[in-house]
């Protein structure tokens, strides 16, 4: 499988690091090479946050992604910051509940999705991140279907086990969108 370099970017508190962790766990379960790197500036809730996740069959060089094959953007500043870095042939997933201007590039595939609104309407507030992971799975099949569920179960910490079902619902919603 081709190396997949994913940048997830948005506001702090949207669960981007967690979404990245779910993708990383999927790679771990399938015994692939995986790296996950958060931005760790003076971040705070409401500020910008991003993380880089690489899935590969070869040892991974820099975990900091400069040329993503996938961008998941959950707000407008993040889209602006990263849209030009996506390689030709790459994917941009934009949460259009918060992103108002869609990129005009014609050399990448763009998937607008009102993930935040969808999650809120389904009483899954705060799980737009996982809706987008579901959408990414639908568009790329970056792992086996059973793996993605297992990844959610691994990524949710034991003390929050009650949230597994909601995460799975959000995932399904993204996969069916």
């Amino acid at each position, binding site marked *: 499988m081709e190396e997949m370099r994913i940048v997830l970017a948005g506001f702090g508190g949207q669960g981007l690091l967690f979404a990245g962790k779910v993708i990383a766990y999927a790679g771990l379960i399938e015994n692939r090479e995986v*790296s996950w790197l958060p931005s760790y500036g003076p971040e705070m809730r409401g500020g910008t946050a991003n993380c880089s996740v690489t899935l590969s069959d070869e040892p991974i060089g820099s975990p900091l992604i400069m040329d993503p094959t996938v961008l998941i953007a959950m707000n407008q500043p993040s889209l602006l910051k990263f849209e030009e870095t996506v390689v030709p042939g790459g994917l941009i997933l934009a949460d259009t509940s918060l992103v108002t201007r869609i990129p005009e590039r014609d050399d990448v595939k763009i998937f607008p999705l009102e993930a935040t609104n969808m999650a809120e309407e389904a009483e899954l507030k705060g799980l737009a991140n996982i809706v987008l992971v579901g959408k990414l799975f639908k568009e790329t099949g970056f792992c086996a279907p059973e793996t993605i569920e297992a990844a959610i179960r691994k990524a949710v910490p034991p003390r929050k086990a009650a949230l597994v079902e909601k995460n799975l619902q959000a995932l399904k919603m993204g996969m069916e969108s």
Partner: protein
Amino acid sequence: MAEKVLMKGNEAIAESAIRAGCRFFFGYPITPQTELAAYMAKRMPKEGGTYLQAESEVAAINMVYGASAAGARVMTSSSSPGVSLKSEGVSYIAGADLPCLIINIERGGPGLGSIQPSQSDYWQATRALGHGDFQMVVYAPSTVQEMADLAYGAFDVADKYRTPVMILGDGMLGQMMEPVELPEPKTELPEKPWATTGHGNAREKNVANSLYLVAEELERTNFERFERYEVIKANEQMAELTDCDDADIIVVAFGASARIARTAVRYAREEGIKAGLFRPITLWPYPKDALDATCAHAKAYLSVEMNMGQMVDDVRLVVNGRAPVEFYGRTGGVIPTPAEVLEKIRSINEGLGD
């Protein structure tokens, strides 16, 4: 095979140290090593160990000194400015010939600098972290797995040679997660007949001390320590060579910058440039022997670092004029890109001609 888990580099070092028998951790918080101390705070009490957040870095390193004198496996961790504060204590520990593990998850400097990744403490780590005639073993892991493996083995090396050992990481390695297979917990630890554990008048007293008022006595201990350093140099050099056998251009890089250099070297090979990667795993002792062997065929060297050019000194000492040694680096917390390194490799290659 144990199950692989996804862990941050900082956490992997902490867990691995506990599995190596470390039961005392003394530290003071600082970004980007925070998760290491936080992990210790959570785990140490469950293992019957001691986690203590000291009132300062100076206090923490002196607690390390005390626990080590009493024979415990002990460690501290910090990031660049905090490590500087610990330097006096590390010198005392070296002077008293005591083992311990010190972690530096480097950030940009000098001064308070930035909190982003850097490798600008290379000189500090490899020349002497503190005053006086001493050195210490310095490891430079470049993956989370290697952080776990080196932390696990570091205590054995520290005990064997009675020396402080450092793991020199950086904010990128500390913060990133990768799959890691953790080592089995150690059940037997080496005897420490020199430890100050109380003797009930059954033996001569043991003393941990770095003060010698008679010059000749101090000179004798320094001579003795430097004889041990020669043994360390002979036995403990570690490096990883990738595609170096037929390489014209050898890129030398450690830790996080070695990951970037590895990608650049792969791109260069795809363009038909004969490049290779030499990755020191021990920064002290520097893996001189393995690097020296590459001088038989390499036509140029490029040291890639996240600083203004520090390890390049060691590369030049080994190459000793037999080939040009160039440098590429970014600093202050800026991370070099594979494309930048590739550009530098290309320009060196053009200079080589046919």
